[in-house]
């Protein structure tokens, strides 16, 4: 600190510290701590706040288990009846479908990353990248809407298939997968570049000689990838998966537009609790549940891929 004072003088040092303190305290740390504290407090009318009823408890978190309802599930023709709290069910489905989206994104990106890093002529790479970036600049809103239009009941996809004589009538594209097909398909498209870049980065540092050595020793293409390429790219894969998963879980716009009438995303549950029920403390608790889910996922990913936090943080 004295070195900084000597180098910049009192005013500039103070200004830097002040700006940083404002940012980290007023915009980051204090709100989070406050949220954490609020999540343990009950939902009370204004006059009762601070009074004898205002005690700390886990009730807000436990409320995810309340309101059990009967949920009917169609699973490959079999019908299951599940009695579960609707909030908990939505939470589980959010996690599950975010995982599915992440996996699909990874599967789609992996070959492309390999192609860009190792196969494509470097001269063409710049042009390829330029085209790749265009959807990025177009903003999440527009990317989402593109698919909203695509998958509409009488949208272009339907019309195209009708014109080709494959189907008649409209298709509810977004009603499959228990109403989440639209959400999954769109999230894959919207977030796929966040998976591509970390994996691609990891791939570029892979030495082609390793692959050739594996081939030389008789490994099949599958085995080469499984034992050589993927282990090398683990930090990039982990980074991409974590990023996409967190974007999916926290996504609000995509589910809002592409859900079926009977499906919901956990972020919408939070929104409803905050602005329809006006239970902000409950909303806080749910927000933290979401955060915990992300943290658990990150930890699991780190364990599974055996990478450290520094590797992921890029």
């Amino acid at each position: 600190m004295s070195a900084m004072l000597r180098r910049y003088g009192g005013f500039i040092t103070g200004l830097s510290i002040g700006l940083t303190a404002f940012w980290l305290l007023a915009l980051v740390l204090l709100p989070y701590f406050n949220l954490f504290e609020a999540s343990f407090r009950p939902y009370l009318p204004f006059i009762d706040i601070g009074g004898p009823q205002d005690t700390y408890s886990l009730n807000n978190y436990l409320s995810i288990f309340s309101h059990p309802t009967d949920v009917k599930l169609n699973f490959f023709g079999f019908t299951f009846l599940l009695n579960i709290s609707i909030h908990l069910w939505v939470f589980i489905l959010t996690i599950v479908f975010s995982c599915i989206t992440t996996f699909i994104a990874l599967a789609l990106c992996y070959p492309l990353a390999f192609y860009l890093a190792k196969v494509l002529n470097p001269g063409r790479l710049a042009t390829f990248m330029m085209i790749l970036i265009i959807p990025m600049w177009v903003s999440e809103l527009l990317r989402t809407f593109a698919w909203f239009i695509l998958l509409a009941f009488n949208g272009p996809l339907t019309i195209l298939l009708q014109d080709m004589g494959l189907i008649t009538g409209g298709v509810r594209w977004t009603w499959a997968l228990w109403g989440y097909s639209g959400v999954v398909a769109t999230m894959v498209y919207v977030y796929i570049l966040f998976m591509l870049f970390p994996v691609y980065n990891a791939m570029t540092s892979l030495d082609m000689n390793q692959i050739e050595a594996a081939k030389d020793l008789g490994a099949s293409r599958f085995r080469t990838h499984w034992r050589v390429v993927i282990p090398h790219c683990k930090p990039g894969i982990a980074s991409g998966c974590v990023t996409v998963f967190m974007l999916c879980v926290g996504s609000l716009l995509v589910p809002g537009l592409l859900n079926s009438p009977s499906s919901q995303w956990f972020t919408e549950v939070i929104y409803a609790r905050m602005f329809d029920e006006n239970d902000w403390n409950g909303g806080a608790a749910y927000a933290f549940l979401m955060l915990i889910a992300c943290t658990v996922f990150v930890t699991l990913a780190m364990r599974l891929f055996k990478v450290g936090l520094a590797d992921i943080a890029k």
Partner: protein
Amino acid sequence: MKSKLSHKFLHAYGILFLVYLILPLLVMGGAAFNSSKFPSPLPWTGFTWRWFQELVADGNIWCFSFTDMKCGTSNTVWVALTVVALSVPIGTGAAILLNNLKGRFRMVLYAVMIAPVLTPGVVIGVSTLVFWFKFGVPAGLHLSILGQASFISAYVMLMVLARLQSFDSGLEEAALDLGASHWQSLRRILLPHLYPALATSAVLAFFQSVENYNTTQFTRGQQMTLTVYYGSRGRSGVLPTINALAVILIAVTVVATIGFEIWRRRSEAQKRLAA
């Protein structure tokens, strides 16, 4: 060496991937010019400029009032400008501070600074809303500004910090040695070096603010920004004008990218001649 066949497969896959990325945008582009009432390029009922006209005429977008809270464009712009005005100084100050620290303390500080980037926008929105409510501050775009600034400052900090690494601190010493005050040294020596990073991060901050949805949606109260305007109307009947907007944005991006590339190549050629 991979066989020719697998290479061919990958080439095809690459092309297919590009098509996959661009096609939905082309769908929007097509819909923008289709006179069909439903926003879609099919069935094609005829070419029209109608949606562009409606876009321009939409009172909810093209108003520049600062008091009308439904004014999508002006709200979006003033929110974005304020976010830039906040996050660029904060990010720069934080980067300068971080650059002068080392060891454990620096690592911890860095981690706290990066945390908002990793946090879901929903959580940022909720925490901002709940926190400032304690002080009696109601929901509104001013809270959206604070919420957005919390993570956009981190992006600015990263870019400025990277640029600081290439700075020779001996230059600051030379300036002091010649009699400059600390402020003069900052203004004449350090900031000029940082200008590229400051400019880039300002642009980045602006666009990140414009397209932000999650945090804004939770903190805005009744006020409206462009992104939220389109986003929350969606279910109740998507506006076909969004396709026109998309076409304009894509066209602007493509033109800007090409223009930037040309300018870049020209200035590099010039530099080579001058040297």
